[in-house]
């Protein structure tokens, strides 16, 4: 079967080799053209496609009577909702990247700073942690106030008759007017969504379950579980002032936060990443110092590297 493309030997491969060696590897590269390509079985591919498209349609049907999460309250919480693109002004703040599209506004807090402050068109304040992304659809403020979060943010929601909804990979968090923290990093070592409430009440749901979370309480959400967690909000929300605060959290998760906050790379083997640790520091300004603290806590070593740090075993 003919290959789709023939790729050329990258020129870097020839560096440092003598002529004979270069000829050798070029010949072998060419020879490999004779290797039969792997092709997927057509029937199996069709099955996979059918399954995926069906799952998509199922989800659409399930979402379309909307789940009854809206806490519609009485009239004393009315505020006039006028859709202004005030949020664009926030783009002038250094460190915030905004992409405008006809359908949604995308905000991203760049790594290397503690957080970025955004004010949405309804007056809600959002503090977006380093490396996090927030999308605000064009329909925000008309039928509801929905945003999509990838990362961590602290919300101070302006009271309104329209529920404020934060969507993350595994959860929907719905409020009327309150202050709370949402954390969701899909693909990381701790990828469940975590919601902590400071004031007011929040309804948190995944596909199957739903819970009301009160001030001082917290839950973690994954596709099929929704569990309360013990937490001390003043610790857990320390990130807002540049603190790092973790209670029995995997070092891998802490390292992810350090990388985003300081815009560095931290290498560490799995044996270190998988260790849980408890550590609380207020207003950390120096990555090296903080990593040194962690290293000391679990008796491993660390050193600076070209683009960050490395933690390693003795």
């Amino acid at each position, binding site marked *: 079967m003919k290959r789709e493309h023939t790729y050329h030997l*990258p020129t870097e491969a020839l560096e440092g080799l003598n002529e004979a060696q270069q000829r050798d590897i070029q010949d072998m590269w060419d020879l490999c053209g004779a290797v039969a390509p792997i092709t997927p079985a057509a029937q199996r591919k069709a099955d996979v496609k059918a399954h995926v498209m069906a799952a*998509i*349609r199922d989800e659409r049907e399930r979402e379309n009577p909307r789940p009854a999460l809206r806490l519609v309250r009485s009239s004393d919480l009315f505020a006039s909702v006028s859709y202004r693109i005030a949020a664009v002004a926030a783009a002038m703040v250094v460190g915030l990247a905004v992409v405008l599209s006809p359908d949604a506004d995308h905000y991203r807090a760049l790594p290397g700073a503690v957080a970025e402050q955004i004010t949405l068109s309804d007056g809600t304040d959002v503090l977006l942690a380093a490396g996090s992304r927030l999308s605000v659809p064009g329909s925000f403020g008309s039928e509801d106030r929905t945003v999509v979060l990838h990362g961590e943010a602290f919300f101070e929601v302006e009271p309104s008759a329209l529920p404020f909804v934060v969507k993350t990979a595994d959860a929907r968090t719905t409020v009327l007017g309150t202050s709370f923290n949402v954390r969701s990093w899909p693909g990381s070592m701790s990828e469940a969504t975590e919601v902590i409430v400071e004031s007011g009440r929040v309804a948190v749901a995944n596909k199957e379950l739903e819970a009301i979370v009160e001030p001082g309480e917290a839950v973690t959400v994954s596709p099929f579980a929704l569990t309360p967690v013990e937490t001390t909000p003043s610790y857990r929300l320390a990130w807002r002032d540049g603190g790092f605060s973790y209670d029995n959290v995997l070092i891998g998760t802490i390292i992810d936060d350090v990388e985003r906050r300081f815009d560095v790379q931290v290498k560490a083997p799995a044996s270190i990443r998988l260790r849980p640790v408890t550590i609380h520091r207020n207003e950390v300004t120096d990555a090296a110092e903080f990593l040194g603290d962690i290293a000391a806590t679990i008796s491993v070593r660390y050193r600076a590297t070209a683009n960050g740090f490395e933690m390693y075993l003795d």
Partner: protein
Amino acid sequence: MRSIPDEQFRSWSHGLLRSDEKSYAELFEASYDALFRYASYITHDQAAASDILQDVYLKLWQVRETIDPERSLRALMYQMVRNFALNHERQRKRHAAEAIEDDHPSVRFDTVNDDELDAAKLKENLQLWIDEMPQRRREAFMLSRFEGLSHEEIASLMDLAPKTVNNHIVLALQHIRKKLDAFREMESSFD
């Protein structure tokens, strides 16, 4: 997937943000084969590869609203396949000796033409020599030779320095050279 321009991927990213099924079906058709090959390089098992791909496409749709159109969807998909495939391998508790690829097309000896026999045997052996390389070397080599990924792309995907990727590729080719020499010597001793 090398031939698909970045613009197209960006368009599919926006399709995902809009929950556009038709756009997703297009992305599926365009990306499946290359990602399937990649999953096969890691798992040596076509059935597992298609399971992994199914999980990847489902997961990608699940997290669609968090896609950033400014970042490479192509790279994200390779990364997802890698993560899922490696996870699959870890769970499968593989034994020390690496199995020969199941999908290898069986060589047909329905002709007695010497040249054809030789070519077929060579092809079979090439596959074997590639399979017996260490896992990461093979992965880097396959991505470069058969998927057209650049050193930087492979480095980013496998969390290696580009120089290391280059070493893997050169060593892979040198390994094949050594095997080929030994093979030819053996063959000629039968003439």
